[in-house]
């Protein structure tokens, strides 16, 4: 009828050929997920033949279970440790790319407390989340001799930190320092754990092994498109991605997102080390092995597991998108 004739022909035909893909993040929409939203918003995914739905996570991470149960196709996992956990428990998940070369995990301290290296944190009361306790804090314990008794629970509310100068609080370099500065009016000191040897990957794309085996092409396209999205988000015009983030999460604003991108660039969170040559997404066996050893020493994972099961280099290190990085 008349109404059918109004539907644009292009959309009709292309919809048919697009592969439906769902991708779950581990938090609400924010700058740290910018590349994925960018790829969705600027049509990169579509260009790669993908019809992507991004399912934001929430305060409690449920999306990983949905991936395992087959309700999602990809999931954004936080760090390499999660990869080891999957192997430990024989869960057939595979990390296929990492978007962050450095884990953005930091400790914030009050400017009045002179802290210049990680050992200086030891006398302070540490505010660490339960996830942090089971992961990087174990590493701090084994590597730097931190004391569990100095830890207080952190529920992602910075109030106790602000009130008490003798505390240090965990956070992401890309957001908490900004929030504290905005609200409390002081600029906290920041120590990036990655700079002291905590060499976990972060913001990895994870999927089920059967998807890797049965539809490698789909996985490849999703990884490539996401990488391109990240290049655009970090270096290019990221207004489309930001618009989408702000729409999904009205608490986000331009200032905050700009801060996030600036910090990602300043600290080389997304693009540094291996990715300079191999492109965003780059992973290496050496680095995995090094992190695994550290986690074994920290007693977080068992030395007997075959951690190679948990990731594959098959889809990365192809220098996809390096041309998008501005040459300066």
């Amino acid at each position: 009828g008349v109404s059918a004739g109004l539907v644009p022909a292009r959309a009709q035909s292309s919809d048919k050929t697009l592969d439906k893909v769902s991708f779950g993040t581990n938090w609400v929409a924010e700058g740290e997920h910018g590349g994925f939203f960018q790829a969705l918003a600027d049509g990169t995914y579509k260009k790669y033949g993908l019809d992507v739905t991004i399912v934001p996570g929430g305060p409690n991470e449920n999306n990983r279970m949905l991936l395992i149960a087959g309700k999602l196709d990809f999931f954004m996992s936080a760090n390499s440790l999660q990869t080891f956990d999957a192997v430990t428990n024989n869960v057939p998940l595979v990390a296929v790319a990492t978007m962050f070369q450095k884990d953005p995990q930091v400790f914030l301290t009050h400017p009045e407390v002179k802290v210049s290296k990680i050992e200086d944190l030891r006398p302070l009361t540490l505010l660490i989340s339960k996830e942090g306790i089971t992961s990087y804090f174990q590493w701090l314990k084994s590597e730097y001799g931190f004391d569990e008794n100095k830890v207080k629970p952190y529920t992602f509310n910075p109030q106790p930190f602000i009130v008490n100068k003798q505390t240090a609080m965990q956070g992401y370099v890309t957001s908490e320092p900004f929030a504290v500065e905005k609200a409390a009016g002081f600029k906290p000191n920041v120590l990036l754990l990655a700079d002291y040897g905590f060499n976990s990957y972060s913001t990895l794309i994870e999927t089920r092994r059967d998807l890797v085996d049965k539809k490698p092409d789909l996985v490849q396209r999703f990884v490539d498109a996401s990488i391109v999205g990240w290049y655009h988000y970090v270096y290019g015009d990221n207004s489309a991605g930001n618009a989408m983030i702000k729409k999904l999460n009205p608490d986000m604003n331009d200032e905050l997102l700009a801060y996030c991108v600036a910090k990602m660039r300043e600290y080389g969170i997304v693009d540094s080390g291996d990715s300079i040559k191999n492109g965003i997404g780059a992973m290496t066996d050496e680095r995995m092995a090094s992190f695994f050893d550290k986690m074994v020493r920290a007693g977080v994972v068992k030395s007997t597991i075959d951690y190679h099961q948990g990731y594959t280099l098959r889809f990365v290190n192809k220098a996809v998108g390096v041309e998008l990085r501005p040459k300066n």
Partner: protein
Amino acid sequence: MKSPQDLIRFLLPVAVFAAGLLLWEAIVRAYGIQPYVLPSPLLVLKTLVADWPILSQSLGVTLLTTLEGFVAAAVGGVVLALLFNQSKWLEYSLFPYAVVLQVTPVIAIAPLLLIYLQQQTAVIVCAWIVAFFPVLSNTTLGLSSVDRNLAGLFQLYGASRLQTLLFLKLPAALPYILGGLRIAGGLSLIGAVVAEIAAGSAGAGSGLAFRIAESGYRLNIPRMFAALLLLSLAGIVIYGVLALVSHLLLRRWHESALGKDS
């Protein structure tokens, strides 16, 4: 006599509330407490007004979940109690599961629910789990407190099970059931909040729980308090409505709802 009494009943809490606010404001000023630790009530109110569009939307979402959870808890609790009342065997075999449901942390089973249920359904199930037990427990207590002679009378007059239920057990248990509902009212609000945290959607279109958590992370403490204030008000209103319903239903016959000298 009656009208001034009622007025006091209404004005007194308001006055005490106002006094509480003044004290709060005074403390904040006296100790110079920063707004990111404890915002002054004035600031909270300002924030409430300023952020009304976003907060009211979240309030709506949470209240809807609360209502659904409450209805589910009320119906589920009463029906379960009636079922258990029909057969001791049923009660002995299944009551432990009701306890298990009560003590299961929603946070832990929300992921499982999300696998098998629609998200909105999962949220309501979570709210239900939090709120149903008081209704079940109180209704069970009420049903077993039915006057024996009255029960005998029903038996004598050949009342069917349904008749005994409708005309004897439910009315007799009503004060207890309403007591359970008054507890469940607040709990289903809490249940909605917990459910939102555990299984709700985040970002736009999310409820007060998310606002509170989010404002907490973002250190937007005034907004967090504004959201908490809304939650508290919602709780008081829910309780007030339930207490009023109780009063209207019981005032003509039950001890607990009678005036001093009637």
